[in-house]
């Protein structure tokens, strides 16, 4: 087994992997950029090394710097987390060359799967069902026009190197194609350093269901059940659950076997996810394979009782899978909410800043994987994911009620978060009836927000509390008050007397 693992990531996933290392008696090495010195993963690690400027290309995406730290710290393996270098075949290869084990698939498997176009070519050969479109990058606008006309609008443009909805455009009509193609290309170039874009038929309002697979280095591959990831906004997943309410044991077995075939066709090892689009008739189409640990892996962990990060590490250390397919049992239901630093009142735009007050949920069936703490300033340089709140119950209804209860306990002050969005989702009748597809969230957000039947006394309570806080003065104030002279918070249009008074108090 490894003695020391370097985690080439930040945020909640770095903390998640550090915890697994410590549970297994392995030392954990953190790396951090200049704005992440105070981040939680640095606090939790056994060793921490600075790797440079905030821009990811200067730090978390810089292969040389990360390998230098691996050498200096004598780490014998690297866990890449998700995002950043996790699906970078060049990095996996560089790790092999440097003699440090990459915890993930081989570079060859990533090459086969990491590019969505190459994955489609491989799957064509393996006889896996997939959505009509091109299996090669588009060479020109004219070609895009021809293919789109052949397969019929609407079509979806996708970055070959894509993920997380970046470099993706839905095109309804020919006249939108040109600007969409340019937009997808430039976004793909910016996000992945690769402007290759392909086109496929858009299946409108499909479900997005993915299958977790795990393969050891001795030829054993299993599937660990599906995750329903249909709740998305801007192609970014927001809520995930397992199992999917529409997948029965028979369909699970069929999808699982296809997923295993996909993994084996690519010579896949370690943890991976095969994504499918599912139409209203429950036909499923291969979409892509994610060659990494997924953000939403905890829901699978809760319903299978397995620890995927432990298993990743054991498999990477050369161990055999400690169970067979027949031994994989699914029990209960789990739902995950991705807590983002976003402003629901400003179209969910990112809201970095200092967390002045943090109250945490706990209790039965609640798991919280978080990278934040009170007093920490969320940097503006990275993805706004702060934490994941996961509810588990014996069935879907109980998972929802526990999660709803926990969301009411959760309070993040000082920055805006999307916590209120989850209250809306979880109380929505269609969500409760599991009538969800990838268009659900956009439809929900277009509706006017229903007036929440809050406590009729709430305003009076707020007035009284405001008065009591004023009497108690700065003795009752948390870390937020002393922040008011920072120029990051100055809002010239919003100067109120209250602010002036607070400022006077702060500079006194």
């Amino acid at each position: 087994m490894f003695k020391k693992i370097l985690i080439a990531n930040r945020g909640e996933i770095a903390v998640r992997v550090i915890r697994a290392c410590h549970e297994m008696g392995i030392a954990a090495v953190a790396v951090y950029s200049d704005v992440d010195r105070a981040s939680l993963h640095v606090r939790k690690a056994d060793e921490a090394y600075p790797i440079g400027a905030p821009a990811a290309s200067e730090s978390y995406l810089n292969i040389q710097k990360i390998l230098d730290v691996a050498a200096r710290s004598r780490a014998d393996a690297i866990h890449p987390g998700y995002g950043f270098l996790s699906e970078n075949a060049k990095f996996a290869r560089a790790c092999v060359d440097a003699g440090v084990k990459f915890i993930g698939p081989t570079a060859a498997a990533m090459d086969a799967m990491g590019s969505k176009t190459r994955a489609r070519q491989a799957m064509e050969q393996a006889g896996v069902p997939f959505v009509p479109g091109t299996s090669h990058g588009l060479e020109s606008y004219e070609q895009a026009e021809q293919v789109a006309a052949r397969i019929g609008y609407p079509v979806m443009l996708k970055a070959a190197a894509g993920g997380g909805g970046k470099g993706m455009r839905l095109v309804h009509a020919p006249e939108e194609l040109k600007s969409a193609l340019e937009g997808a290309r430039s976004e793909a170039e910016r996000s992945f350093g690769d402007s290759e874009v392909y086109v496929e038929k858009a299946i409108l309002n499909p479900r997005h269901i993915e299958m977790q697979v795990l393969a050891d280095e001795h030829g054993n591959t299993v599937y660990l059940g599906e995750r329903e990831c249909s709740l998305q906004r801007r192609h970014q997943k927001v809520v995930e659950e397992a199992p999917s309410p529409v997948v029965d044991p028979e369909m699970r077995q069929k999808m699982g076997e296809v997923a295993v075939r996909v993994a084996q066709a690519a010579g896949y090892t370690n943890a991976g996810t095969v994504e499918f689009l599912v139409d209203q008739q429950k036909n499923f189409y291969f979409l892509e394979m994610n060659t990494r640990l997924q953000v939403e892996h905890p829901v699978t962990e809760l319903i299978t009782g397995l620890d995927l990060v432990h298993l990743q590490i054991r498999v990477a250390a050369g161990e055999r899978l400690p169970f067979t397919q027949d031994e994989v049992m699914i029990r209960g239901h789990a739902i995950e909410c991705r807590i983002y630093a976003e402003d629901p009142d400003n179209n969910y735009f990112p809201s970095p800043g200092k967390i002045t007050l943090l109250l945490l949920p706990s209790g039965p069936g609640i798991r919280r994987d978080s990278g934040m703490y009170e007093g920490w300033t969320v940097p503006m340089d990275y993805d706004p994911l702060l934490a994941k709140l996961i509810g588990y119950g014996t069935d879907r209804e109980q998972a929802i009620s526990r999660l709803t209860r926990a969301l009411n306990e959760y309070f993040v002050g000082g920055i805006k978060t999307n916590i209120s969005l989850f209250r809306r989702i979880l109380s929505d009748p269609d969500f409760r009836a599991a009538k969800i597809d990838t268009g659900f969230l956009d439809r929900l957000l277009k509706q006017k927000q229903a007036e929440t039947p809050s406590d009729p006394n709430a305003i009076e309570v707020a007035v009284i509390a405001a008065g009591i806080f004023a009497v108690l003065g700065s003795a009752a104030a948390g870390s937020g008050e002393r922040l008011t002279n920072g120029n990051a918070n100055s809002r010239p249009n919003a100067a109120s007397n209250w602010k002036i008074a607070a400022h006077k108090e702060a500079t006194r």
Partner: protein
Amino acid sequence: MTYDISIDGKNYRLDLNREDSRWSCRLDGNEVEVDAVLARPDVLSLRIGNKAYEVKCERVAGERHLWVGSARFAAEVRDPRSLRGRVRAVDDYGPKKLTAPMPGKIVRVLVSQGDEVEAGAGVLVVEAMKMQNEIKSPKKGTIQKILVSGGAAVNAGDVLAIVE
């Protein structure tokens, strides 16, 4: 202690008398007995009658938001004895500043100085946390000034352009 407290544009007069954790309040003339415990900074546990409330106070940039359950109230507290308690009139005419809603980087400037813009027209694009945000004109008018250029880093609240 007497305060004028305005919440969501409505004004309330609150008198407070404190004896340890017991507060005798008079809210717009109605007597209310409150038992208040500061559970930790910015968190009050209140008992009003036998009803229990946890109230959170969120302070950002001098603004004060009170959370009762999942409901948020923006509160403005004034001491009526203070001259500062007068509300200034807000001027809706004249030049309007476009400010950065968050720290980030200017990706594109979509207009030039002197351009006519409609209300809601995109003026600049700011990028933060891998997301692009179009800053729109708050009114119909002329772009009087653009104070940033593409690639510039900005802080929340920085003035980016002025529309007149």
